[in-house]
């Protein structure tokens, strides 16, 4: 039995070595994804372009602006001097924020009146607008605090702040989005090598008729599937290692948790993904159909529904239910637990069980469909 499995695996590896298109998908695609998600897709908002409409032109407004642009968050683009320019700058996306200081700002400040400073934010990109609004809030708050402090000091009083809010972010102190993305990226890359390549590789044998020759041989379905999957498991593990290494070298993300648990989780995930791939291969008769089925059932859900980018908790409950169709969802929870939080198996054992069940269901479905189709 072992020899037969080995014969299949060796054959598969030899075929793969000559199949440049497949090699490209299997090895180059992950690198491209890593580069895209590592560098191009970035939810961190830096260098927001800001224009200032300063109708007061006082030392107060200069201080305020100085506070904003001394951080790396805001870049001052221009000063403007009339209302029409606000619309033009925002329309043409020359700036993302316009701050408007009222004419009587310094006078009001000196007479201890409330001042209304207006921030006009480009709201097209909701996520960024939200982040920008938080930044300007914080900047304004800190300016007001400073102002109050000086005022009290001048009156000979010490300032008393009842609650000092000091948020500290655990597991990802700088809130780098790449830290959040790496686990999902790993899941997606493994989905490509597991679901897509295994289903294509089995369907290719169907398409070319070589599977008929194997059906007639003493080779059993289990031996066939094991032999087929071993090379892809090896490739998947290599890819996973590449992603982790790149995460460490390029983005400084070290694995916080246990390596053995990481390997275990990855194996269980691969089992689920490969089952899905095998199942697809039993219902598809051409590589084209298999490829599309694999994309629709695995790659897209693992991108959209897995919590990779869009948090599952904020989806409507019907969609939340739908997220269970992708094994990546469970794997991402496991990866985030191990890679970022460094916690033990108690935090994600349920996910392992879900993955196991997922794999079991699909391999059983594959066996049933395969039995039926063989008697046709």
């Amino acid at each position: 039995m072992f020899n037969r499995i080995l014969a299949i695996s060796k054959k598969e590896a030899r075929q793969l070595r000559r199949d440049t298109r497949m090699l490209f998908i299997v090895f180059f695609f992950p690198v491209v994804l890593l580069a895209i998600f590592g560098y191009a897709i970035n939810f961190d908002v830096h260098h927001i372009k800001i224009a200032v409409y300063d109708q007061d032109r006082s030392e107060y407004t200069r201080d305020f602006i100085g506070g904003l642009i001394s951080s790396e968050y805001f870049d001052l683009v221009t000063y403007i001097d009339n209302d029409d320019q606000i619309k033009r700058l925002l329309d043409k996306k020359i700036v993302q924020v316009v701050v408007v200081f009222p004419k009587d700002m310094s006078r009001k400040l000196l007479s201890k009146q409330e001042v209304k400073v207006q921030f006009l934010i480009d709201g097209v990109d909701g996520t960024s607008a939200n982040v920008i609004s938080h930044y300007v809030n914080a900047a304004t708050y800190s300016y007001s605090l400073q102002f109050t402090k000086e005022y009290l000091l001048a009156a000979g009083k010490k300032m008393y702040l009842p609650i000092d809010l000091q948020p500290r972010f655990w597991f990802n102190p700088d809130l780098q989005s790449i830290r959040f993305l790496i686990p999902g990226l790993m899941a997606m890359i493994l989905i490509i090598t597991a679901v897509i390549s295994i289903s294509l590789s089995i369907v290719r044998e169907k398409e070319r008729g070589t599977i008929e020759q194997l059906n007639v041989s003493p080779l059993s379905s289990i031996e066939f599937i094991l032999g087929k999957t071993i090379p892809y498991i090896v490739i998947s593990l290599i890819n996973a290692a590449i992603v982790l290494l790149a995460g460490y070298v390029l983005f400084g993300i070290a694995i916080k948790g246990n390596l053995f648990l990481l390997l275990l989780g990855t194996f269980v995930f691969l089992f689920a993904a490969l089952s899905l791939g095998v199942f697809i291969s039993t219902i598809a008769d051409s590589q084209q159909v298999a490829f599309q089925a694999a994309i629709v059932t695995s790659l897209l859900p693992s991108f959209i529904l897995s919590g990779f980018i869009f948090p599952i908790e904020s989806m409507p409950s019907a969609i939340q239910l739908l997220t269970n169709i992708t094994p990546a969802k469970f794997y991402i929870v496991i990866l985030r637990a191990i890679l970022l939080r460094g916690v033990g198996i108690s935090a994600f054992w349920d996910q392992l069980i879900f993955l196991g069940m997922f794999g079991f269901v699909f391999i059983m479905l594959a066996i049933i469909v395969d039995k039926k189709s063989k008697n046709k």
Partner: protein
Amino acid sequence: MNAIEVNNLTKSFGKFTAVDQISFNVRPGEIFGFLGANGAGKSTTIRMLIGILEPTSGDAFVGGYSIKNEPNLVKKNIGYMSQKFSLYNDLTVAENIRFFAGIYGLDGKKYEERKKWVLKVANLENMENVITGSLPGGIKQRLALGTAVIHEPKIVFLDEPTSGVDPISRRNFWDLINDLSGGGTTVLVTTHYLDEAEFCNDIILINSGKLIAQGNSEELKTEYIKNPILEIESDRVIDSLEILEKEKWVGETSIFGNYIHVILNDSTINEKHIYELLRDKNGISVKRVERITPTLEDVFIHLIEKDNRVNVQ
């Protein structure tokens, strides 16, 4: 003991019966021809005999093993090669041989010996590192047969092994089949080419899933057509055919290039009547009319048309 024993083998797909109660025996070491039109049920029968399709009813014993109860033992003891040449085109010759040897558990000395044999029968000595896809069809087909019998099975199934191959390669391929049979291997072969059927020791013909004739080629030719057959060579084949078909004494007709074969219903009719009818009455120049012994093709067309008429009624 027979190498293959088929008893009332039946396969239905829903209401459609693809193979209907077929029974026949194949003796050890013989070349057994399995003939029938496309869709007659040949492939379905073979797929049952090689253990990958379960029969609806009936059973068959291949090498003594029941295809119904012991399909895995059947698979271990047979070789199979289909019209599609199931080799991996992206592997080299040696890699293909190694792969199939691995599947059948050959290793060490035995493997080296069989590999040498396969390379020899395929005429591929010193070419083992050539990519299989780049080989010509005839060579590929010999390699496919070689790898299909790499484990030296006693029984080999060949499903239209020569379709789409040039005549010389076909002849070479049949030499190889004869060698196998000479070495004691039982060969069951399906084919479209009736000249190939002449090489077979025994032949069966199936139509619409039913066995309609059985015997060696001599028996088939003499037993199934008792009526005389005339071969007519004329310039206007189609016109002649139309005229002939109107006559009561004409049974079946078929065209072979510019010959017409006519099976007569009335044995008192002879060559003279044909000349009278075509040349004298209709002015068609007839070059030659000759009484012939039937070819296998005549027999099969006769049998299939007869069977189809029965089925329609």
